[in-house]
């Protein structure tokens, strides 16, 4: 590869595809509220660049698609499932390349029906993380390409991170 080709690629790399390079947190909040007025609630700016929002689970898939396509949140950092007394919370940490913005999107499911829509078709990186949440916490992800146990053996009967599972240690 010649010198010129390298430089042009580097220059292309300076400006990533993200469209919210210098958009403050409030703008994200506003556009989310405009598009999902009924389901998105409970906004909070935790610290600089970190926003928290809650969303009802029926709108999760559409909201994630909107976030990726229109707001440029192209990187799904982490999916974590937390068990509370009467509900499961699934926390999505979504960020975008090239800007200091992290969105903490929380959706909750009741205990008797722990299932949400899978976002694996939006972010390919969500595939294994959802499998892990299914494995350890027992959350079912609808339309997941291959929802199997990943860390534990295939014939395990329990979901060990739930609070009713008592292990040693």
């Amino acid at each position, binding site marked *: 590869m010649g010198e010129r080709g390298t430089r042009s690629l580097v220059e292309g*790399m300076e400006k990533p595809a993200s469209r919210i390079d210098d958009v403050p947190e409030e703008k994200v909040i506003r556009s989310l509220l405009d598009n999902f007025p009924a389901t998105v609630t409970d906004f909070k700016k935790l610290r600089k660049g970190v926003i928290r929002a809650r969303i009802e689970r029926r709108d999760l898939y559409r909201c994630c698609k909107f976030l990726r396509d229109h707001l440029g949140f192209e990187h799904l950092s982490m999916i974590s499932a*937390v068990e509370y007394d009467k509900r499961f919370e699934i926390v999505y940490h979504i960020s975008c*390349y090239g800007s200091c913005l992290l969105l903490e999107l929380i959706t909750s499911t009741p205990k008797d029906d722990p299932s949400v829509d899978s976002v694996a078709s939006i972010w*390919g990186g969500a595939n294994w993380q959802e499998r892990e949440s299914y494995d350890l916490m027992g959350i079912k992800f609808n339309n997941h390409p291959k929802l199997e146990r990943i860390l534990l053996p295939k014939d395990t009967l329990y979901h060990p991170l739930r609070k009713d599972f008592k292990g040693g*240690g």
Partner: protein
Amino acid sequence: MWINMGPQHPMTHGLWNLRIKVDGETIVDAEPEVGYLHRGIEKLCENRTYTQIIPIADRLCYGSSLTWSHLYCLTVEDLMGIEVPPRAEYIRVASIEMQRIASHLMWLAAYAADLGAMIGFIYTMRDREVFIDLLQALTGSRITYNFPRIGGVAHDIPPNFERDSLRACDYMEKKLKEYEDLFDGSKVFMMRNQGVGVLRKEDAMNLGVTGPPLRGSGVKYDLRKDMPYSVYPEMDFEAATHPDCDCYARYRVRMDEMFESCKIIRQAVQKMPKGKWRTVAPRNAPAGTGLGRVEDPRGEGMMYVVGDGTDRPYRLKIRSPIFVTVSAAKKMLVGYKVADVVAIMGGLDMCIGETDR
């Protein structure tokens, strides 16, 4: 023909299994399997006090244990709302960058040995020893340091630490040039690396790949720059990127990162202010959530802690960079030869301790 590369195989560097389907010597399908080293650290942490988790967080990754205990301390400090003394921040940054160099050198050792150059293994391990010795003098241990504490670091720096680390940086920069002789100068190495394991930019971004593999695909995304923590905003360095998207690009990014780390160590050691290095951490955390996010040598490390007012965390979730990166293995592997598996998977710097947790 399906071939199981692992769980016991020289290529794997740990306990995992890569199932590849080959047609002759060409790979047509690949399927990584992890979970052989699952220790249940997230469940374990729910039964330990906040202090007791620090050595457990060290055990997440044998290659760069200091990053993980630092990440854990950052997370809990976010939950508890503690301010860390500036001297502690500088000590942390210096030690983390040393750990980054040591980790990258260990990667280079394993990578060179995978490609068949034993010479690379020996030289990098020898030079890694310089930084391990520095960290040993600083922390008191060689692999699992248990050095960061909630609200500071465990010790002050030992005498002559500044002089030693500046010397180590000079030595390292000299040695890195020699590695370029050994690897970049060797046509065999270039033949094995260039154009192998191409992961295009869009794929890398979509699959959640972070760290050197992502920067090797031409995306300038380094959390030290993009979402600065600790005292990184005051440091003068650059995030290394390379536009080639192949194994050579990943190698190059890591080599450049070692140069940058030397720069950061110099600045951190020279700018280090006087003062306290540790504050008393409260025993009980408030109810709420804390979030930590660092640039691990292997990618984006992240922890999410939920406190419930007691002295034990209610839930601790760990995002391991390799766990996400290895799920992109199929994208990189298909179409290459069996011998390229070692180059491609070795180029990811697998660490199963943090992948399986």
